[in-house]
């Protein structure tokens, strides 16, 4: 019998890690083999509630377990945030093209993340760190609303050995000693030679918009800026029609696009 591409495979929820007051990481163990490339997304479903696209935040080289970091933002994610270890979820995919690691080889890499947008970037960072000799210097600029909203605090500490990391928060609390301001302010004194540099951006639309303009401002070429676009990807297969963006479907032509491919589109950041 032919394969039903809409049928999720069952997956056990083996751990729930609280990352911030509104963000949790779900550790999943699919009952059948499941592999993805960094930057590809999956459709995660909760029986009777619905299904939504998420980009895994775990190391794609680890195939037994998949981690998905999810903010409580809607009906499905609210349902997911109620879940405890041992429950069963559905997973389909992976979909889309993901990050073209081969194009990054030999280049210096500036990663800019905002909020829960660090989730797909964590998967990317794991891939880069697994093969550091293939890539140049790696920089990470990360912005969160408040110090409480910074996710992956422990991992970030470990990454500091290999990555030049700057973090900013929109609003500080009494204990915060670091930068205050939107994430683009971290780029004000970014004075590297950009001749062999690419940049990868993931975050909420408004953050992606201003970060992209800032990167252009400091000298990045549109073709060297990799953006993770978010639309209402539902089927993941370029058939259901919901995630059209100009001549593309984000689900199958993206979700990662270089800015030059999409910069002339109307209402790009809406």
């Amino acid at each position, binding site marked *: *019998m*032919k*394969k*039903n*591409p*809409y*049928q*999720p495979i*069952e997956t056990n929820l083996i751990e729930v890690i609280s990352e911030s007051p509104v963000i949790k990481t779900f550790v999943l163990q699919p009952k059948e083999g499941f592999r993805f490339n960094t930057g590809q997304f999956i459709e995660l*479903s*909760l*029986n*009777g*509630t*619905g*299904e*939504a696209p998420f980009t895994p935040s775990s190391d794609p080289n680890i195939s037994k377990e998949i981690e998905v970091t999810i903010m409580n*933002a*809607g*009906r*499905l*994610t609210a349902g997911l945030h109620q879940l405890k270890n041992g429950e069963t979820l*559905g997973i389909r995919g992976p979909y889309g093209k993901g990050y073209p690691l081969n194009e990054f080889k030999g280049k210096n890499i500036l990663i800019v993340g905002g909020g829960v947008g660090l989730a797909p970037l964590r998967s990317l960072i794991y891939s880069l760190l697994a093969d550091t000799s293939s890539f140049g210097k790696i920089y990470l600029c990360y912005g969160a609303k408040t110090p409480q909203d910074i996710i992956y605090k422990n991992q970030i500490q470990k990454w500091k050995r290999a990555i030049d990391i700057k973090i900013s928060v929109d609003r500080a609390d009494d204990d915060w000693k670091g930068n205050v301001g939107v994430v683009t302010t971290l780029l004000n004194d970014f004075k590297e030679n950009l001749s062999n540099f690419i940049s990868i951006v993931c975050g909420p*639309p408004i953050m992606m918009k201003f970060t992209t303009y800032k990167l252009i401002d400091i000298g990045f070429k549109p073709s060297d800026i990799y953006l993770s676009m*978010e*639309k*209402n990807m*539902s*089927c993941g*297969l*370029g*058939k*259901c*029609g*919901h995630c*059209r963006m*100009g*001549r593309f479907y984000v689900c*199958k032509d993206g979700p990662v696009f270089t800015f030059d491919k999409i910069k002339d589109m*109307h*209402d790009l950041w*809406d």
Partner: protein
Amino acid sequence: MDKYFIQKKDTAKFLDNLSRDYGVYVPYRIKGKEIPCDLNLKLPTDDYLLESWDRIKKEDFTFNEYRAIEPLRTFFAFPKERLRLDEEEKKAAIFGVKNCDLFSLKIQDFVFLDGEARDPFYERRRQNALLISGDCPSFKETCFCRSLDINPYPSEGFDINFSPLDENFLVDTGSQRGEEIIKSSGLFNHATPAQISRRDEKRNSVVKRLTEHLAFHQIPPKDVLQEIVRDGYESDVWREEASSCVECGGCNLSCDTCHCFLLSEDRLKDTNEKIRAWDACLYANFARVAGGANPLKRRYQRLRNRYLKKFDFFPDNIKLNACCGCGRCIDVCPGKIDIRRILRRLNEEKSVSAH
């Protein structure tokens, strides 16, 4: 492929024979709403539904003058269905398919059969279905296939085609399967050259009348449609036309080339089986994402999106406009939004701004 002739009285027998192997669907006439023609061409206003041959009285069988109410895609991706591959389905033989419908299958085939994942539900039904098309001996007020260079008679994409000839039919075969069915039925004779030339005359005369009717609507030619919807992105036409939209989704759901669908869960059963239902891009939440962001928040944006999808996205991807000129969206719209008028207005604005 060959040309045959069948007497009207034998067509019922032919359909009966077919119904042994197929679920046969035939046109069934219903009273339509009267739409006056601006040119006083006295156009027919009745409508047709495609009904199961087993469910209608045989004397009610009729040859449809133009496309039925339901789009052909109804037979391949059902309006609502459980996505289970293990359920047996009877093959469909659909009588009364028109050339607009056949054109639209090119769009549907691209969506469901092209690319990395073929849709097994669509694929199975599409491969199994027997398409018995027919010429349009007339047209509705809303028909505008010729504006898109689509003829009111098929020339490809069918298994069998019926052209009315007085009370009887000239029959073309378009596939090996169609040829075999005709031959094995014993109900068809070979067509004579005189019959063929009379059929061709009838075709030409319908095209002539339709062209006359369409001249009134001044629909821009198909090759400029992409340009006018692109250049008209900021046009007031969208806001003005969308003001009477009640977001019923009728234009989408009656459309032969629309294909968007929703995947959802069965709320009553603890299963991860998917249910698929047709969706409509005129609905407010079509493009909404978690957290509430919605790139198509306003009605005029959604109306414009429908046109960009049809006349910009599809030409970019497969060099075809995703519109067959069937006019179903015009018939169905309670807000009297008329695709012919929108295209004409965009074109007029463009020629004004060019001067």
